[in-house]
């Protein structure tokens, strides 16, 4: 065992079905976010910035775009002589092939990968959240508390506690109780799905859990409660800062719009904690003579001739003359033709919005998800 060494295992196999058309072709971690990124860029950049250079990425649902995005990990400086980034899909063995049954099973199936790297600690991450976090500080906390498990938690608004797995803790951050989606929460600390385990202990629990019939093989439902029951020390690490689960089209749209506010906590311009992504080598954006652009994020390769207000534009987008777009997220390759008026929408990749189209209205809360052949309304 290499003392003090921590590796990360990133669960990136989820579909994220509530994102509807956004995840029709890609897994949730590969969904584009923030004008140039994909969701998985956040945990991957966090790893790199936290000096964690061994990352196993567990894929399952529609992995093609995710695989080509990750490549050999050079965008995150994770192309290493030894270790580095590894994509770990489900595989077949002499017993036949099978899908990952649950989050814990996905790690179990890759025990040999972790054994080879031989770490003292394993960091379990999910590829579904937008946040910037220094995992090395969480490890310091884990070591200082002599914990067996550390779970990262974040304070959520009290009226939303029923949507999260809530943890109740004592004054030493010792976890006293798990409260899954409680009706009357005693605390507002929600689990972020980020765990640090001592690998030796976790390994034996994974092996034991695998033998149990009818287990869901899930960290939250099976492994952690069992370890707690056996008296393993579980602590909560309180994270402060921006954290968002972009589970639905609405929250996806909101998280993108958050980037436009002046007091946005997720500072993408912080050069000490850059978010990295695969580069497309495009020329700068061109804003034409008659254009007006306010409160918007625009990426390379865009040409704007029309009117944009509070929009997030990905790359290679053409907004033609007299088109007016408000509060909208536009993914790459989109063309918006003349005289369109669009409010509160998410426009998917490579869509051409024909001249004169009107989508949404300024005084409605409905978010429109626009794809090549249909428009879905969501509240």
């Amino acid at each position: 065992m290499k003392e003090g060494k921590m590796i990360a295992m990133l669960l990136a196999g989820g579909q994220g079905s509530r994102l509807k058309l956004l995840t029709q072709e890609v897994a949730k971690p590969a969904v584009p976010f923030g004008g140039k990124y994909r969701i998985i860029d956040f945990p991957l950049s966090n790893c790199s910035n936290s000096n964690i250079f061994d990352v196993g990425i567990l894929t399952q649902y529609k992995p093609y775009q995710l695989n080509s995005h990750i490549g050999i990990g050079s965008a995150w400086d994770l192309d290493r002589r030894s270790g580095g980034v590894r994509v770990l899909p489900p595989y077949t063995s002499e017993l036949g092939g099978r899908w990952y049954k649950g989050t814990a099973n996905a790690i179990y199936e890759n025990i040999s990968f972790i054994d080879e790297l031989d770490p003292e600690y394993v960091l379990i991450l999910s590829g579904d959240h937008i946040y910037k976090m220094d995992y090395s500080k969480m490890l310091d906390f884990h070591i200082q508390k002599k914990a067996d498990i550390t779970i990262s938690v974040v304070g959520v608004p009290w009226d939303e506690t029923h949507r999260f797995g809530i943890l109740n803790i004592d004054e030493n951050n010792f976890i006293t109780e798990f409260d899954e989606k409680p009706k009357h929460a005693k605390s507002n600390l929600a689990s972020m799905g980020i765990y640090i385990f001592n690998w030796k202990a976790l390994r034996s629990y994974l092996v034991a859990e695998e033998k149990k019939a009818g287990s869901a093989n899930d960290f939250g439902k099976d492994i952690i409660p069992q370890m707690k029951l056996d008296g393993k020390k579980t602590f909560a690490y309180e994270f402060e800062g921006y954290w968002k689960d972009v589970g639905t089209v609405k929250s996806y749209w909101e998280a993108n719009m958050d980037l436009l506010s002046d007091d946005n906590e997720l500072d993408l311009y912080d050069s000490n904690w850059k978010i990295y992504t695969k580069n497309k080598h495009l020329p700068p954006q061109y804003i034409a003579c008659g254009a007006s652009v306010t409160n918007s994020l625009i990426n390379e390769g865009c040409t704007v001739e029309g009117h944009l207000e509070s929009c997030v534009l990905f790359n290679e987008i053409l907004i033609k003359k007299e088109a007016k777009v408000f509060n909208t997220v536009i993914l790459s390759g989109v063309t918006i033709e003349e005289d369109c008026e669009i409010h509160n929408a998410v426009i998917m990749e490579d869509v051409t919005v024909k001249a004169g189209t009107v989508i949404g209205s300024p005084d409605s809360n409905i978010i429109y998800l626009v794809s090549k052949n249909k428009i879905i309304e969501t509240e």
Partner: protein
Amino acid sequence: MKNCLGIINLSEVDSPFGVLCQNRPASMLPFAGRYRVIDFTLSNMVNSGINNIGVFTGNKVRSVMDHLGSGQPWDLDRKINGLFLFTPTYDYTSINAKVGDLDLFFQNKSFVKNAKQENIFLAKTYMIANIDLKEAYQEFLDTGADIGIIYKKVSDPKNRFIGCDKINFDGKGEFESIGTNLGMEENFDLSLEMYFMKKNVYFDLLFDSVERGNANYLKQAVLNSLNKYKVHTIEFTGYVSCINTLRNYFDANMAILNQEISNELFFEHGQIFTKVKDEPSTHYKKNARIKNSFVANGCQIDGYVENSIIFRGVKVEKGCIIRNSIVMQKTHIDENVHLNYTILDKRTTINKGVTLIGDPSLPYIGGKKAVISKEGDI
């Protein structure tokens, strides 16, 4: 173009660019929001399939090394072939100071000798274009010529190409000689200073000139022995701008605001690659007003910007008016600054209320890391 070796010689004159070239050669001048001048030549070569490239860096090495590094953005960090940098060396034993590139080529002859390629493509960087070299190379091979020169028929009423090489043809339209354009004729044939050459011809020229001592530059050697070799001229018909004076540099940047030109330069025969900075998208804030401008990523703009080129990571605070200017990487422009016909080098700071006005023929230049404040403020 597997059989063609690339050589880029960064021997352009720096002196016309003043403080902009204090610590960088002209080939490393920032261009078009996120590029350096050299990116075009290098990307053209890579896009055409030349994957073994030697760069003769000249003496401002730090800037060159910093930008090119291992060649990764151009996909030249290879085990087989790749990017090779040759820095100048001092020979203390010789009493004669060496001028010109010929000595440099001679000293590094083993790079060319050991390369498996049988033909050479030699280029400078100051001609900005997006060229399909594959096509030109094929033409060179098909004619069986010893030397191929790429040229363009230009009409130059504004004298943009003064001092550039000019191809002269005889009455039958056959190649006759290379001279210097003094602007006597409006229409002439501009040499892009891009040459194809057979490897044995390269060595003949090199060794012959060293023995005779009659040339300091490879181009001189070529001119000395034009009668010995079959020279073929290859016409290029696309857009070219020439970075040889400050005025031309300024105008070449501004030409990017023309959509036709920028589409050709950035997409025609493949993408232009450059060092990646991992900047987020550009944020246009509530007071932003932008007209006819080319803006790179990572900027935060809250002022008025018109007819300008804004590089990566520039901050423009509210109340600013920026017109007809080039603002390079990581420059911070504080509130109520007024710029017109200004070039600001990297990491410049312009404090509140400053007004900088240049002239189209002589833009105001703020040097790298300069801090400019209003009179009376510290």
